[in-house]
């Protein structure tokens, strides 16, 4: 059986139909969901884990979970939000108690191996008012990715979720099981470390 549905952003009915098909075992539908979301899921896993290899493993875990739980998605939120939240929770639960893993390969490999960066602007926009919108060069982006990968786990997690992904501190506190104040402290520490690493101060 071949899914003929096209996944269009904000097309909730299309998402439901596709999810229903995938949930019933339609490979084409599941592959379509994978194609639509894998790059975002991988980016999240990569930045949160700090390791390309680990990110690949985590992404696989995510999609196995997606397949297992797709039937529980009720369509109240966008499927993408449901998948990304599942991703964050899974990466966090895997990261708890785990020693910090090798990080040097992260962004370096992501870029050096010809990994393609695609459509970039998110639906979330908070935080952007802080900065002067200055387009970063590719080199600056690579430097930033590398520096993020080298952050300590806690600081990296909060920085990625807050400054890259746009989650609120309250949401991050819930997801990570820490106090909101701790999240804020981790964020400011992460920014300090990044600025030092990037030679800002």
């Amino acid at each position, binding site marked *: 059986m071949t899914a003929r549905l096209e996944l269009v952003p904000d097309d909730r009915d299309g998402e439901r139909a596709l999810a229903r098909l995938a949930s019933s075992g339609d490979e084409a539908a599941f592959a379509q969901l994978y194609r639509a979301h894998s790059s975002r899921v991988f980016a999240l896993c990569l930045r949160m884990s700090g390791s390309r290899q680990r990110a690949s493993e985590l992404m696989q875990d995510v999609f196995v979970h997606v397949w297992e739980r797709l039937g529980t998605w009720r369509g109240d939120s966008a499927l993408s939000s449901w998948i990304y939240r599942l991703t964050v929770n899974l990466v966090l639960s895997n990261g708890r108690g785990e020693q910090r893993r090798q990080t040097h390969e992260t962004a370096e490999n992501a870029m050096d191996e010809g990994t393609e960066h695609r459509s970039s602007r998110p639906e979330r926009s908070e935080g952007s008012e802080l900065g002067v919108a200055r387009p970063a060069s590719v080199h600056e982006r690579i430097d930033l990715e590398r520096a993020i990968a080298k952050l300590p786990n806690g600081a990296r997690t909060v920085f990625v979720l807050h400054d890259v992904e746009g989650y609120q501190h309250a949401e991050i506190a819930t997801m990570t099981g820490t106090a909101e104040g701790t999240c804020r402290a981790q964020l400011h520490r992460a*920014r300090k470390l990044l600025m030092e690493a990037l030679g800002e101060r």
Partner: protein
Amino acid sequence: MNEPMSHYDIETLSAFADGELNAVIAARIERHLAECSVCRDSLRGVRELVAAAHALPRDIAAPAEAWDAVRTRVGRVARVARGSPAASRRHTGSWWRSGWMAAAAAIVLVAGTAVLMPRTAGKAKATKVGRPAPVVVSPVAVANVDRSYSATLSELRESLESQRHALSPSTVRIVERSLATIDTAIAEARSALASDPANQALVEILSAHYERKVELLQRATELSSSF
């Protein structure tokens, strides 16, 4: 204007940039910033960093081989989940359903009942109570199912054999003894079916025995894989 000798640290300026500080402290920092180019630069750096992070691409292409890995793992999970009737019902028509999954489906069609439920002959008979109209069993279909299971069981057997070194000798003995018991039961059911090929209850019993064997082999394989 003289530059101040002391400066705010990045964490404080970061909190200031996020508007987290109380009005008194924020006012003090604003006054300081008016006089301190170092802290102004630092604050600008924080803001540029946040803007750069926000501008990072949301998508990074996953490794090309990842899809195959996901596909394989989903297929494996489907087999394990197969023991759950709910899971079986949910994932019908799946691409991973080859071999024994197809066989199980065939038995369902032939016997007109769920093959995963009966675990013993007694239970199999019990499930017959209150069942709707009886289904005529085709001996040819039963033979086909038999062959399908054989292939799958061979596959699982090979898999277990390749990993049996990971199991303790006592575990291997228990597995082998259990398999022998099930094989005996399968042989008896097949023998009975040879005499009475249209007996629906016997088909159910046979299928239940096959299921038990598949399940046992799967669990033993999983056990060996976990070491």
